[in-house]
Structure formats: C-alpha cells, structure tokens
C-alpha cells in the first residue's frame, strides 16, 4: 500500500515537473506569453469594432426592411419618390443579406483582404470591415424580428404625438427593440468573438494564430491550444455576465 502511494507521489512529481517544463517552454521562454497577449488584443480590437459596425449596419437595414414590410403598401398607394427609394433600398438590403449569409466568413475575409482592399496593408482594419459587414447581416435580422415584435400601438402613439417615422423609431421603437433582442444579440456577439479566429487566414496575429505560432515553435500542442481555448472561454463568460447585468438594468421598467 505504502509502495503504491509512493509510486503515485513520484508520478505526480514527474508530471508536475513535466508540466512546469512545458509551461516554461511554451509561455515563458522567449516571452511567448506576450504573443498570446498581443493576439488577444487583436482579437478584442477586431471583435469590438466589428461589433459596432455590425450594430450600426444592422439597425439601418432592419429599419429599412421593416419599414418596407409594414408601410410599403401604403406608400405605394400614395406614390412619390419616397416609395421608389424605399423599394431600391430594400432590394439592396436583400441582396446584401443573401450574399453575406450565403457565403463563408473566411471566403468573405479573404475577398476583402486580397481583392477589395488589396492595396491596403492595414489588415486589422480590413478584418474589422469584413467581420462587421458579416455580423451586420445577422444582427439586421435579429433587430428586424425585434422591431416586428414591438406592439403596433407604440408606433401609433409616437406618430400621433407628432413624431415623424425616424423619430418614432429612434425614441420609441428601437430602445424597446434592444431589450427584446438582447439575449439573441449576445449570442451573436459570442459567435463573432469566436469567428474572428479565422483572422489568421489573412496574416493577422489574433489569439488563435498566436497559439498556432507557439505550437509551431515548440512542437507541443496541448498547452498552447488549451490556453487559447481557456482565454476564449473566459471572454465569453465575461460577456455573458455583462449582458446579464445589462438585461437586469433594462428590466427595471417592467417590475
């Protein structure tokens, strides 16, 4: 029995020493932990700005599409340039949604980097644009379903006070819409954070790429990849918590 414990103890010691050596090799030596830190920074920067771009695009597209769905008929009957513009905008939005949602993110990113912005060497900016445009398509549909879920009476109340269409959307419908879609939106952000892991395809050192670089140097896979996975996990957990807090604050008006 004592022998068995001794073996176990030796085993643990060996494993610990091995772990320490691996840790040293993968993270300490050559300051490789800094690679992860830089990668993390790039991931965060890309995600954050892509998120802003996606939300901005999403709101505009959702408003255009829901306006067309709800008021298209009335505007058509009344005629005028407004309807023609709305119809054109709606067609453009539909094409955008179809193309972006119908093609893989990696392909879009590479097209952006190697074709559209071939002359730019600011790869982070290109990534922000590519991920933002991609996310915008999904966010737009989330927002649109949110707008459609707001009671028609809210809209009528706004209009009857004298707000124009855009003001009614801005002051009355969109704030309520955000509350409705927050959980779904959070989900989209989580997807976006993880999706930026393909940024390495266009030579950006994001978190995933940093992990990959370390494995390329050290030829060990376990530790760098697990470290990367844990960092993503922590990011997602933090984000989920923050959104939970925000949701609770917004719900104050419902008690």
């Amino acid at each position, binding site marked *: 029995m004592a022998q068995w414990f001794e073996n176990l103890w030796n085993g643990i010691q060996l494993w610990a020493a091995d772990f320490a050596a691996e840790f040293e090799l993968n993270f300490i030596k050559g300051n490789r932990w800094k690679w992860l830190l830089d990668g993390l920074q790039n991931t965060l920067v890309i995600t954050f700005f892509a998120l802003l771009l996606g939300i901005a695009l999403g709101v505009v597209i959702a408003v255009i599409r829901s306006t067309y769905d709800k008021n298209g008929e009335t505007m058509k009957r009344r005629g005028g340039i407004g309807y023609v513009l709305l119809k054109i905008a709606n067609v453009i939005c539909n094409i955008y949604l179809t193309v972006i949602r119908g093609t893989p993110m990696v392909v879009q990113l590479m097209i952006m980097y190697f074709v559209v912005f071939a002359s730019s060497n600011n790869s982070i900016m290109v990534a922000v644009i590519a991920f933002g445009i991609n996310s915008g398509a999904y966010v737009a549909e989330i927002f649109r379903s949110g707008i459609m879920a707001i009671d028609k009476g809210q809209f009528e109340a706004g209009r009857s006070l004298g*707000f124009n269409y855009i003001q009614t959307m801005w002051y009355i419908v969109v704030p309520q819409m955000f509350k409705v879609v927050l959980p779904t939106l959070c989900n989209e952000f989580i997807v976006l954070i993880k999706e930026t892991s393909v940024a390495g395809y266009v030579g950006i050192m994001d978190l995933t790429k940093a992990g990959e670089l370390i494995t390329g140097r050290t030829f060990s896979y376990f530790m760098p990849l697990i470290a990367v996975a844990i960092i993503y996990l922590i990011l997602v957990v933090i984000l989920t918590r923050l959104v939970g807090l925000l949701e609770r604050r917004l719900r104050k008006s419902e008690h």
Partner: protein
Amino acid sequence: MSIEKEILIDVQDLHKSFGSIDVLKGVNAQIRRGDVMVVIGPSGSGKSTFLRCLNLLEDPTGGKVFFEGVDITAPKTNIDRHRQKMGMVFQQFNLFPHMTILKNMTIAPMKLLGKSKAEAEAKAMELLTRVGLADRANAYPSQLSGGQKQRIAIVRALCMDPEVMLFDEPTSALDPEMVGEVLEVMKELAHDGMTMVVVTHEMGFAREVGTEVVFIDDGVILEQAAPNEFFSNPKHPRLKDFLSKVL
C-alpha cells in the same frame, strides 16, 4: 346651434377600404371648435377607422380631411406638424414602457416643440396634479393600474397643447371600476372647452358630455344629432334597434 363656431375638422366624402373590404363608404362630418362629438355604433361599423382617419393613422382611400382649413390628406402636407395639434388616446393606452411617466409626457414637447426640460416638466407636473397622479411621476407604466395609465395617456397628449383630442374607445379596455375615473377626466376636459371626438360605448357620457352624437353603421353616418334629440327621438330604424340593445 353653434353655426358661427369655426370648423376645426372638415371631413368630406371619406372612404377607406382594407383590401376588398370597404370600411368607410363616404363619411361627411364637421367638427367645430369646442364640439364634443361622440361617435357610437356597433363593432365593425367603421367608427374607429373614421377616428383614425382624422389624424391619418389610417390613410384614407378616398375623400378629404381638412384640419384648420388645410387638406391633410394631400400628399405634400406635413402630417407630423398637424398631428402635434391632434392629441390621441388609444384603447390600449400605449404608454411607452421604457420611460417613466414624466419622460412619457415630456419627450414630445421637448423634442418637437423645443421646450426646455424644466418647462416641459413643469407643465407635465401641473397636468399630473390635475388628474391626481403627481406622486407617480417617476413610476414606470407597468406599475400603474389601467385607469391610471389611461389618465396618463390623456395628459401625455395634453402636454402638446393640442387643438383637438381624439379618443378611440378610451374605456373599453378598463376594468369597470376604473371607467369612472377616466370619464371624469374627459368630462373636465370638455368643460374646459377642449374640442373632442370620442369613439365610445359609454352612452351616459355621450348623453351628458356630447354636443353632437353620431351613429355610424356599415361605413356611413346614419344619424347625427344633439344628444337629447339623438337619444329621445332616434329616427333611423338601425339606430332605434342599436339603442334598444345598449340602453
């Protein structure tokens, strides 16, 4: 009769159809300053649609609506400006749930009339005091009862200093014991000389407060008279039938 009073809203041959269903089939009506026009009729008769056409929440398919002499059905008219002067109260209150009561009442005057926050809030508090809800200024709509919500909805519209108030079945969604408090506010409003168009099933209100009572059935006005005449001496057989069922 008050023929010398200025015509505030003039409705001429109003038509409205939803798809192939004709809801309004040529409605003519004049609402004069200070009038309290009460619109009654069976459900589905088009009375709510008539009211909603007055501020173009429904877009008429034919005919014209003049407000203060301006044809608001003309495509070039800036309807938003005219709506500022036409307060509307809905069956379902439609308070903004994400704003406090005070914010509900001040957002439109601040954004549309350019009033300062202090100015708008002073006016809102004054109105809230009048309807006995000053202590709820910082509550959210979900914390109020139906009757309270509807009183807020009325004073929210009043914050814009409207020329006319449109009421779309304001008490139909209320529990019976709350109907009184809302009607009380509307009566006071009428006493103060507000021009009102009220779609309602409250015959008592029509008789007591109305200056004109209108019976709409099947998309046309079948009878229009002063309340006494209207209720004591109905002429149209459909109105007789209707009154016999509701009175």
